[in-house]
C-alpha cells in the first residue's frame, strides 16, 4: 500500500507522455525500419493492392551502392565539415572576444545570437539571391558586391559548383548558428571560477598561458556539446537546402532531400531506408556522447 502511494502518482503522471513517446517516436521508428526492409516501392504496394515482400537489408545495400546516394552522402559530409568548423571557429572567437567584461557586451551578444531566431526558410530566400551564381555583367548578390569593391576574382558560382556547391549552402547555416555556439562557449568561459585564473596569475602565468592551460581545457565539455548539437543539426539539413536550391538539383542533393523525393514518387521503402540511415548516422554521433556524459555524472556523484 505504502509503495503504491510512493510510486503511484509519479508513474501516473509519466504514463501519458510515455505512451505518446512509445507510439509516436519509438513505435514509428520501428515501423520505419519495418518499411525499409520491404520492397514497398510503388503506390500499389503502399495501399496493399500489390503484396510486399521482406527483403532484409536489400534496400540499404542498393542505396549505398548507387552513385546518386553516394553523391548525397559525400555532399552531407562536406556540408557537415564546413558547417561544424565554421560555427565552432567563429563562435569560439566571438565568445573569446566577449569573454572579458566590456561595455555594450549585451548588444553584441544579441546581435550575434539574433540570426538564430530567423527560420532557415526565410533566410534561405534571401541567401538564394545573395548566392546567385551569375558572374560578369549579370552578376547579382555577393558576386556583384565583389565587383563593386574590386575583388572580381572572388566571384564564383557558389552553390552551383558541382563538387563544392554544398559548402556554399553551409554559409547561411554558419551565419545563423555561430551566435548560438558563441552563447555556449560564453557560458563555458563564465563557468570557470575566478579563483582559478587568479591562482594561475599568482603562479606567474602570462595572460595567454592562463587561457591556454587553465581556461581552454575546462571548455572541452562545452565544445563537445556544441559539436554534437551542430553536428546533428547538420545531418538533418533539409529546409535550408530546399529554400535555396530545389529538390531535384543534383549539386545540392543530401540524404534528407533524397528521402523527400523518394516519398513523393511513392517509393516508401527507399524513403524509409534513407531515413533509417540518417538515424543511424546521428546515433553513431550521439550515443557515445550520451554514454560519456552519463558516466561522468555517475562518477561525479
Amino acid at each position: 500500500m505504502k509503495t503504491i502511494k510512493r510510486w503511484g502518482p509519479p508513474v501516473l503522471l509519466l504514463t501519458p507522455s510515455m505512451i505518446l513517446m512509445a507510439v509516436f517516436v519509438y513505435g514509428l521508428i520501428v515501423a520505419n525500419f519495418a518499411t525499409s526492409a520491404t520492397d514497398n516501392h510503388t503506390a500499389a504496394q503502399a495501399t496493399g493492392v500489390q503484396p510486399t515482400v521482406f527483403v532484409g537489408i536489400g534496400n540499404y545495400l542498393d542505396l549505398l551502392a548507387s552513385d546518386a546516394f553516394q553523391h548525397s552522402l559525400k555532399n552531407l559530409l562536406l556540408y557537415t565539415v564546413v558547417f561544424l568548423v565554421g560555427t565552432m571557429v567563429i563562435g569560439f572567437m566571438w565568445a573569446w572576444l566577449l569573454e572579458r567584461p566590456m561595455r555594450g557586451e549585451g548588444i553584441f551578444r544579441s546581435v550575434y545570437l539574433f540570426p538564430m531566431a530567423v527560420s532557415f526558410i526565410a533566410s534561405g530566400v534571401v541567401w538564394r539571391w545573395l548566392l546567385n551564381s551569375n558572374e560578369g555583367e549579370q552578376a547579382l548578390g555577393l558576386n556583384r558586391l565583389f565587383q563593386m569593391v574590386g575583388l572580381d576574382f572572388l566571384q564564383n558560382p557558389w552553390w552551383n559548383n558541382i563538387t563544392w556547391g554544398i559548402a556554399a549552402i553551409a554559409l547561411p547555416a554558419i551565419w545563423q548558428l555561430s551566435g548560438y555556439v558563441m552563447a555556449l562557449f560564453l557560458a563555458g568561459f563564465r563557468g570557470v571560477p575566478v579563483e582559478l585564473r587568479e591562482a594561475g596569475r599568482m603562479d606567474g602565468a602570462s595572460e595567454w598561458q592562463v587561457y591556454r592551460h587553465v581556461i581552454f581545457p575546462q571548455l572541452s565539455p562545452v565544445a563537445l556539446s556544441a559539436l554534437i548539437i551542430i553536428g546533428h543539426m547538420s545531418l538533418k539539413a533539409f529546409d535550408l537546402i530546399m529554400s535555396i536550391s530545389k529538390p531535384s538539383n543534383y549539386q545540392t542533393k543530401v540524404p534528407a532531400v533524397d528521402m523527400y523525393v523518394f516519398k513523393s514518387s511513392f517509393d516508401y521503402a527507399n524513403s524509409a531506408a534513407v531515413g533509417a540511415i540518417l538515424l543511424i548516422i546521428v546515433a553513431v554521433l550521439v550515443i557515445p556522447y550520451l554514454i560519456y556524459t552519463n558516466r561522468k555524472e555517475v562518477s561525479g556523484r
Partner: protein
Amino acid sequence: MRRIGVVATAAAIGLALTACSGGGDGGGDGDEGGGGGTDVEVFTWWAAGSELTGLEALEAVFAEQHPDFTFVNGAVAGGAGSAAKDLLQTRLQAGDPPDTFQAHAGAELTDYIAAGQLEDVSDLYTEFGLTDAFPQDLIDLLTVDGNIYSVPSNIHRSNVVWANPTVLESAGIDPAAVPADIDAWIADLETVQATGVTALSVATTWTQVHLLETVLMADLGAEAYIGLWNGETDWTGAEVTGALEHFETLMSFTNTDRDGLDWPEATQMVIDGTAAYNVMGDWAVAAFEEQGVERGAGFVDFPVPGSDGQFGFLADSFTLPVGAPNPDGATAWLETVGSLEGQVAFNQAKGSIPARTDADPADFSEYQQSAIESYANDAIVPSLAHGAASPIAVLNAVSDATSKFTTGGSDLATYQQELAAAVG
C-alpha cells in the same frame, strides 16, 4: 510480427489523425461529406491568381447546373501543387479521399490507378457525350487498358518559344521569321549571344526537362516521340543522341543562375529584354499580359522550331476517387467540368484552352485562339515535364539525370544511359 501489426495500426491512426486535421482546413471533412450530405469537396492546388479565378468561374457554373449540391473548396496552396499532392497522398493512404481531386491528366495518374484509388469514369464519358467532344488523340492518351480515369478541364501547350522582338531586331534577326528546325534556331541563338544578351533563358531542373521534351518532339517527330513512352522508340538510339546533343548545345546558351530560378523569373528575362528566347508552356502568356506586354510588338511566340504540327499537351483533370464520401456530388462536378459551359468559363479565366473542340474560339484571347487552332489540327503529344507522358517515379528519375547532366556531373553518353534506365 504481431507487434509490428500493432505498431502499424497505431501509425495508421496517427496518419488518420493528421489527415483529418488537414482535411479540416479545407472545410470538407469526412463528417460533413460522409453523412450523405450535399457537400462536394473539390481538392485542388488552385489557390491564387488566374487559377483561383478559373476555379471560381467553374464553381459558379456548377452552382447553376447542380443547385442541389454545395461546392466546398479544398484547395491547398504551396509549392506549385507539391503541398497539395503530399496531403492528398496522405489522405488517400488513410482512406479519407476528397470527393474529387485535381491531377495532371495522363500517365501521372498511373500510381493512383495501380493503387486502386480511382474509379473508371469511361461510362460518364458516354453519358455526358465527352467521347465526341474531346479529340480522339487526347482520348487515346487518357485511356489506360480500355478505361479512362479522369475528366480534363483545360489544356495547356508545352512546346512554345517566347521571344523578345526588340532584342532579336537589335541582333539583326527578323522576329517574324521562325527558324525551321533546331539547327537553324541554334544559328540564331549564336547571333544573339554575340550581342552580349542571354540568348535562351531557363530556370531550375523542371524547366530544363521541359526544354528537353520539346527538343525531343522537334527532332524525333510526333510518332517517334510518343514511341519514347510506349517502348517503341529506342532511348539508346542515334536519333535520341542527336536530340541530346542539341539539348546540350541549347543549354550552353542559357543563364548561369538557372538552378536558383523558377519559370516566372526566366520568362521575366524575356519580358525585360535581358534574354532573347524562353521555352515555356503557354501559361507564360499570362505573365506577358499581366504586365501589359502585347503580342506582336512586345513578344512573339511560335512552336519550338522543328515541332511545328505537334501540340505538346498537358491538362488538369478531375477524378472520382474510390470511397469518395459523396460520389453523386463528384459525378455532378465532373459533368460540369466536362460541359461546354464549364470549360469555356474556366478557361477564359485561367488562360488555357478547353479540352472540348466545340468551343467558339471567338470567346477567347488572340493567343488562345491560335492555340485552339493548333489543338484542333496538330498531332497531340504528351508532355514529359508535366506528368502527361510518364508516372512520377520516371519523371523524378529523368529530372535527376537531367540535373546531373546540366550541372556537369555526367557526360552525354552517361546521360543517355541514365535516361534509358529511368524510362525503361
